């Protein structure tokens, strides 16, 4: 009854700025991105050109999709470490099946393991209540094993990345990456799902207070099962796009994206404890990571120092962002 709201016209401009930033948490995040780009431009004048922007976007998109999986899963207090394996499987399978089948059929075949792993994750986590970290770690291992067994059957079939995927992955139209044709709908779907649908509400609800959700009639396993299947399908789609971009099938293609996908979601303001966050921040988080990687690539320093800097900057960015948005 006594929640007193402070007068809005706070006298201190610094305070007001902070309020502004905390009310629109994306503003500081975008500022951070701009800052990194500015540093990059200062270090290598001329690098920020349309071609570089297109490259950055192309490489950020698969990461952003995987980070989308991670965002949704993290909202429920989970984590999905199997996305790398799922994406790799989809990519490898589509490239090898593309030799025998129509692209459409190859894509459909490539998404089957994604579906299965998602289902398996969902059952383990939703029904048996296995910790998501362990469950997805385990299914990731199992998936990798199956992929290697499968690999042996296709050694001499060669690979053929469907041209449509290559067009989507690497192509530009009017200087704009074609990948956006896939990403914009996917992002819109995730955003809509999280903000405007009953299912999205339930993700937040389950992550915030599972018991309360249960008392409101939410069946946990239904939500979790659907979530992990959805996450795996999106990861599969990200894998398809990634093979279109890299055009070279390998057995560990998307594995290096797993930890960055978690980092992108965290930098974007999603809490790993569940219940808080959103996808817009994640997209910017993915861009920030990509720019950071470029920055470190073009910086001529020892590899060890590069890794140290990467770790420190990720930590710094996350800490700074948390500082800004806290005490909302």
């Amino acid at each position: 009854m006594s929640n007193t709201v402070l007068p809005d016209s706070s006298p201190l401009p610094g305070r007001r700025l902070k309020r502004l930033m905390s009310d629109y948490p994306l503003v500081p995040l975008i500022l951070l991105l701009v800052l990194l780009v500015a540093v990059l431009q200062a270090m290598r004048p001329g690098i920020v050109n349309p071609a570089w922007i297109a490259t950055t976007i192309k490489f950020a998109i698969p990461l952003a999709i995987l980070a989308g999986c991670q965002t949704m899963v993290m909202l429920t207090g989970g984590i999905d470490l199997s996305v790398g394996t799922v994406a790799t499987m989809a990519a490898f399978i589509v490239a090898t099946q593309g030799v025998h089948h129509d692209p459409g059929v190859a894509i459909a075949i490539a998404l089957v393991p994604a579906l299965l792993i998602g289902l398996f994750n969902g059952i383990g986590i939703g029904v048996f209540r296995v910790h998501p970290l362990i469950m997805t770690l385990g299914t990731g291992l199992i998936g990798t094993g199956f992929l290697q067994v499968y690999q042996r059957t296709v050694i001499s079939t060669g690979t053929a990345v469907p041209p449509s995927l290559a067009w989507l992955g690497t192509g530009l139209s009017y200087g704009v990456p074609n990948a956006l044709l896939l990403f914009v709908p996917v992002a819109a779907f995730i955003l809509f799902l999280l903000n405007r649908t009953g299912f999205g509400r339930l993700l937040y609800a389950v992550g915030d207070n599972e018991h309360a959700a249960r008392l409101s009639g939410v069946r946990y396993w239904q939500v979790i099962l659907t979530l992990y299947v959805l996450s795996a399908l999106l990861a599969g789609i990200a894998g398809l796009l990634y093979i279109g971009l890299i055009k070279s099938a390998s057995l560990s293609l998307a594995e290096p994206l797993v930890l960055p996908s978690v980092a992108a979601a965290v930098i974007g303001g999603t809490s790993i404890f569940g219940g808080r966050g959103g996808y817009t921040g994640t997209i910017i988080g993915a861009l920030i990571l990509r720019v950071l990687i470029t920055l470190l690539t073009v910086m001529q320093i020892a590899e060890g120092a590069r890794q140290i800097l990467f770790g420190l900057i990720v930590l710094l960015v996350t800490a700074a962002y948390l500082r800004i948005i806290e005490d909302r």
Partner: protein
Amino acid sequence: WAQGTYTIGVSNTVQGNGWREEMICAIKAEALASGKVAKLNIAHRNTDAAGQSEDIRNLISAGVNAIVVNPADPSGINAALKEATDKGIVVVAVDQAVTEPSAYVVSNNQEQYAYLGAKWLFQQIGGKGDVVYMRGAAGASADSDRDKGFKKALAEFPDVKVVQEVFTGWQQDQGKQQILDFIATGTPFNGIWTSGIDNVIVDALVESQTPLVPVVGADNAGFVGQLNTVPNFTGAAVTNPGSIGAAGVTLALQILDGKKPAEQTVLVDPQLWENATAEGKAKLKAAADPSLSPEWPVSISIPGWTDYTKEQIVACKGPGE
């Protein structure tokens, strides 16, 4: 259904990499083709020297007659290897050497591998200019061996400068992004040396419509295909046969049969196939194999060391399978 009598153990510490997968298949195919092996016992996973020692000890427990090992490190598994040879087990290290004196070595010469390719590249660009140096995984011993070879060639060409040195981690996606990022800086460059992440680099050059500079890579099926087909592209593939694993099996069987080699170490020197000369082009044409998995080296056999057919290595089946 035992056609042979020996049991051979295999230890390998990188999984899910085309080269290593070929090595395993070559080992299986050779074991089958030799007709002397009853059973293969393969420990194949991602691990470090300590984990490899564990695997080797497990193989000892399993009672194998010989162990073919692709060492995680030249000296990190010496203790385990010594235990094996002390028990009378024949140990052959393939791909990289080990320092344990009781072990035999049939190895690709990694230093030579890098030296050969780099020297060709530097000559190709006329002995001067800027090159991009795309290494493997930081901290891996194969990478540091190759670095020695590269530096040796570099020292011979004082006018060649490295404008960019990166570690691809032997990951396709990282290599591609790194080169695209570098292209975007607008820094001019005259050639690229890669440690095996090669076809995505050519791809990136083509996609970004950057002038095709000479590129050095490995004899992976994908890259060899590009050397044959991409117009106006000059490059060279340095062989680094995964079939070296089969050579290890052959050597092990010879020793078990009582034919000891003169030297403890046999180095398989790499070859270089370039598409700048007609002779080179012919070699490349002969080597190309578009049906092979693009990550697989096309040099699937080593004359004098391997006895299997292409069908056998591709089938990837060992004795009893």
